[in-house]
């Protein structure tokens, strides 16, 4: 016989199961980073992410990445259904290794940037953005 407590536990379990598919798992983020780095190790720092601490509208969140000297910057949203956001490749005509854009965030989550440096090393940074209204789908 189901007690009230069992029923609550079942409900919580179901809620957890339904929540999970909407979020990129940690491994999806790791895979995206590995695809970018080719498996090389990544050190912290060297990249600056600028974004609002609290974004009211997840449909359009301004984000700037800056990694002086980098040849490319990978931008990920760790809590979106798929983590990929953009890759910026900087060439000889670039005046800096900085770019700003506007992104969709499905909810409060970490924005991650990984920079590829000219010597083949990689550096990364993460910044939490709190989202009031998510920006995924209708």
């Amino acid at each position, binding site marked *: 016989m189901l007690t009230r407590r069992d029923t609550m536990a079942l409900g919580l379990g179901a809620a957890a199961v339904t929540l999970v598919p909407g979020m990129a798992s940690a491994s999806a983020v790791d895979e995206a980073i590995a695809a970018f780095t080719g498996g090389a190790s990544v050190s912290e720092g060297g990249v600056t992410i600028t974004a609002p601490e609290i974004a009211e509208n997840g449909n359009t969140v301004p984000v700037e990445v800056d990694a002086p000297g980098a040849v490319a910057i990978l931008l990920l949203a760790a809590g979106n259904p798929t983590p990929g956001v953009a890759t910026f490749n900087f060439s000889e005509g*670039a005046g800096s290794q900085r770019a700003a854009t506007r992104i969709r965030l499905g909810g409060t989550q970490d924005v991650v940037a990984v920079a590829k440096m000219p010597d083949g090393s990689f550096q990364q940074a993460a910044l939490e953005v709190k989202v009031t209204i998510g920006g995924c789908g209708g």
Partner: protein
Amino acid sequence: MSDVRPRIRLPRSAKAGDVVEVKTLISHNMETGLRRDGSGEVIPRQIINRFTCEYAGKTVIDMDLQPAISANPYVEFDVKVEGSGDFVFTWYDDNGEVYTETQSFEVG
């Protein structure tokens, strides 16, 4: 999409060797492929998947875009201008269309 329209903002003037800030925006839905219409059918993905900028024949930036880029994709970046030249901005649509905008820039 018939309403795709690029907009570019460049500084009024610059001197040789300056780093100038360029702001670009193109009107586009950036349909993620995750949404459903009223009858429950998935709306197919259609986004701008690549953006490039060239100045005076040199590539400045080459960007890959995913569905997590907001509608009407906005990109801001810096360009080193050694002399006068043409800016060429190119956006690549999932449907195969390519939108190009060219603007000449005087360095005085």
